[in-house]
């Protein structure tokens, strides 16, 4: 069922936003192919009329809370982990091209 090839790997890399050398892509292709062959055994299980699991715990349900501001982390504390900051904000490369 899987048809993993160089192009598919290239696409996955784009989707996951991970830059990868050609050499690494070739290695990943080999590894993933092997894993997918192993995973393929699931197809032999009869799952007709079996609902997919969406809660692990029996009787669990969604937990909601009021949408209110709580537990505020001080701005300085949060920014202390930012790789680049300026004037109390996170700095990123320009996204709008200037003419």
């Amino acid at each position, binding site marked *: 069922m899987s048809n993993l090839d160089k192009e598919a790997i290239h696409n*996955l890399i784009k989707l996951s936003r991970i830059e990868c050398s050609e050499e690494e892509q070739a290695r990943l292709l080999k590894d993933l192919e092997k894993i997918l062959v192993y995973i393929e055994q699931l197809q032999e299980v009869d799952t007709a009329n079996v609902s997919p699991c969406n809660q692990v715990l029996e009787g669990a349900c969604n937990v909601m809370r009021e949408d209110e501001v709580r537990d505020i982390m001080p701005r300085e504390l949060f920014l202390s*982990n930012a790789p680049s900051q300026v004037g109390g904000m996170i700095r990123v490369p320009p996204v709008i091209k200037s003419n």
Partner: protein
Amino acid sequence: MHSLSAIEIRDKFLRGEISAVTIVETFLKRIEKYDHEVGAFLAVFNERAIQQAKKLDEKRKAGHKLGKLAGVPIAIKDNIHVKGELSTCASKFLTNYRAPFDATVTRLLEAEDAIIIGKTNLDEFAMGSSTENSALQKTRNPWNLKCTPGGSSGGSAAAVAARFCPLAFGSDTGGSVRLPASFCGIVGYKPTYGRVSRYGLVAFGSSLDQIGPFATTTADAALLMEVVGRHCEHDSTSLDAPQEDYLSSFNGDIKGMRIGVPWQFLEQLAEEPKQVFSAALEKLKSLGAEIVDVDLSILKYSIAVYYILATAEASTNLARFDGIRYGQRSARAKTLDEVYDFSKEEGYGPEVKRRILLGTYVLSAGYKDSYYKKAQQVRTLTIQQFKGIFQKCDLVALPTSPFTAFEIGAIKDPLQLYLEDIYTIAANLAGLPAVSIPEGFSRDGKPLGMQLIGPQKQDVRVLKAANAFEKVTDYHKALPELAK
């Protein structure tokens, strides 16, 4: 003193026979002397631990009430937050990331006067079964320094086995507490899904992750569960159930308990681990437990299910590491896209990349039904099969691993390494509580672990049975050479 249990150390402190500073210094000295060989710790909190110990000594002198873990040093896996300290997840991506808040478990431990002594090594983002995927350092098994401690919580397991501290916390997504506990000859416990709050644990597979304790005795593991096994409003998957009372049930009585063993699933098990496991079952029988053969044929698909679901969830969870708000940002990046692309390239190791790509693949258009949905259906069948068994049995017993600790570098094929978790993964898929306890040794002197698995929310039953087994065996008392 270093070979005493946490409860024994606490009681000595409470009786005034030993100061907290002496306790902490004893363990810090051991770490200094031996951890260059073992490599369990990524950070040792020398000053912080001594300061805490001093305060505790004063608190005792002043006659104030002391907590359940008073004076006991504990190590924390480096994917669990301790405010102000690094939380690297053993990844280059987070080498400089300082936790801006305490994990709930950290807060609960310190509220009971435990002393956090350091942060331990792991497979990068907890992805692995040997701790070899750490981007920061190697960890060795205290029983045989050529071998891995297992993983992914290998640093925590090695720290307790080497008696660098009596207690530690790890996280278990597919066996990451139980497998290293088995390889290192100690107790490792994965609670019911949701029993322990994951607030402050860096997420990997959110429908599977659970924080769990390492200890040298079942009573110590139970004590930790009494401290951290409670509802937490910061974790929406936290179990809304009253706190359990573990230690008072530890009377050694498991007479009439029915323990299921899926013999057919264990056909492939090699002769030596099979013998050790069978001997352990005989011990349970001698305590009055009844061993019954059960059908858990669905377990043969556990690994396939796991590597679809865990990687799908990981690819979602790890998307947050974008090099913008925290973590490493690539110095080469000149555009916003390059910030993502290059930061992830430089920050992640090979196994993390492999899993993100696999997870992205199984969730991608055209494949989602045949992989992700199929896996969730087989997960339902797994939960159902366990449920059926638990109508007839109180517990299920399995070996923790088909093997003893293997040599560092011996398993290079990622798929081969995934198969290490064949016996542990099902408990995560079905949200079940499961313990690994020392059940014996191989001829070459490496520890083996037995797993006891219970129905959801029956954490007390699991640890009670493990304790009964421990009472009539002494495998947990054996020490590796460097801890004698």
